[in-house]
């Protein structure tokens, strides 16, 4: 009935158990995601960097002078980076239960570990991509920027919070109904154009402003830009609305997933 005396506890107990499986899941995803390509996870950084450079080169043909500053690349990056941080986190988190389904057969891995590991990995990846790109742009171009790190962080963290919230809620809804994924894809198709990536909120006509103010992402891109352009204030942006929406979605997502994750996994 008891353990034989003197036998060392070879398998550590449940302390730090969650941390251990979160770390293991992150390392696993890093090893697996770009497993086929030589260079591995480096591509998670290079791919978005390349895509932003190509896209902004194309867009700069249409818009010679950006609404702020003198360099289109910097203007585009300061809007696109928080936007893509939101997109990456929300899509990765919404797929997290499906991605890790097989691993949940290990009683040590909980559904929450699967979600948290994806949030952390994508926040870190997104932060690294953003830092590399912006440093590169500032180094190469003649643009002079006085960086306000608090504002930059506020904008990017808002995008991450929203991505996390939307991802959790979508994980729940797409887990319960196959239709949801399709509907969401259609409804959010114009999100790129509606989030203030290639324009400023202030330059929009009044009716568009009134409608798009309700898109929390436009607050995030606006806030992030105030950190790069000292003359820009983004007076419309509301921390309370952006973070409030994100937190509310996170709370709802966690609460319902806690009750429903078994149902979703058994489907």
């Amino acid at each position, binding site marked *: *009935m*008891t353990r034989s005396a003197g*036998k060392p506890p070879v398998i*550590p107990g449940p302390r730090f158990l969650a941390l251990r499986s979160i770390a293991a899941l992150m390392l696993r995803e890093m090893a697996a995601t770009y497993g086929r390509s030589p260079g591995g996870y480096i591509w998670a950084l290079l791919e978005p960097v390349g895509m932003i450079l190509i896209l902004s080169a194309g867009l700069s043909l249409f818009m010679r002078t950006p609404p702020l500053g003198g360099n289109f690349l910097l203007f585009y990056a300061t809007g696109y980076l928080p936007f893509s941080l939101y997109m990456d986190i929300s899509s990765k988190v919404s797929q997290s239960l499906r991605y890790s389904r097989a691993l949940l057969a*290990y*009683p040590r891995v909980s559904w929450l570990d699967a979600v948290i590991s994806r949030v952390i990995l994508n926040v870190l990846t997104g932060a690294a991509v953003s830092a590399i790109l912006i440093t590169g742009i500032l180094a190469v171009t003649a643009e002079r920027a006085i960086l306000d790190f608090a504002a930059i962080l506020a904008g990017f963290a808002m995008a991450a919070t929203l991505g996390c919230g939307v991802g959790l809620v979508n994980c729940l809804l797409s887990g319960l109904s196959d239709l949801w994924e399709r509907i969401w894809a259609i409804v959010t198709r114009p999100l790129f154009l509606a989030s203030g990536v290639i324009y400023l909120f202030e330059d929009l006509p009044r009716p568009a402003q009134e409608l798009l103010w309700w898109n929390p992402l436009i607050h995030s891109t606006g806030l992030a830009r105030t950190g790069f352009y000292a003359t820009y204030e983004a007076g419309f942006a509301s921390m309370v609305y952006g973070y409030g929406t994100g937190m509310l979605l996170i709370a709802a997502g966690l609460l319902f997933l806690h009750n429903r994750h078994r149902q979703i996994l058994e489907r």
Partner: protein
Amino acid sequence: MIRFENLSKSFRTPRGGRKWVARNITATFPSGVSVGLLGRNGAGKSTLLELAGGTAKPDGGKVRTRDSISFPVGFAGSFHPEMTGAQNTRFVARIYGTDTTSLLAFVAEFAELGPHFHMPVRQYSAGMKSRLAFGISIGIPFDTYLVDEVTSVGDAAFKEKSRRVFQERMKTAGAIVVSHSMAQIRQLCQAAAVLERGRLQVFGDLEEGIARHQENMGSAGHE
């Protein structure tokens, strides 16, 4: 030791009835003993293993244990095809917090994969995959191993080696074994537990348990 306290678990059947796997079961699986879990097809033996391992949640009651309990021995569903055998081994070692280096060394030697150990699992044959899976499960020093119908893998020499390693582990650990082969149960177990219509009876004496199980199977024919 794994203790079931007033454990209940049931499923809804398509016809609107209810199928009971566990009906208020209170039973103890002692430490360091290999117990054969017997019961007819569909009695819920696999579900009972999942309850013991913690992957299924009981409707009522509790599973109490302070032991480390394995995932089903030979479980290969978690292997990522793009990762090498070694990388997949490392992942399992990390979630269970065992020493990565020594598990890698054990599995590399045990699974006889040679250079394939460092190649992506998608290139493995079914046999190679099962040898890897068995190596990982038995390489981690659990207190209790859960075995659900281990279909033996590999050639005669490998089977013999697997049996030897398993029995070596059984000197310090326990197991719950589900198998339809009474020969295998006799080879691996010292005690038995019989699951019948949601009731579980633990027999300290293996032959007594097998006799009860065969009695149940026989009476099923008359229903």
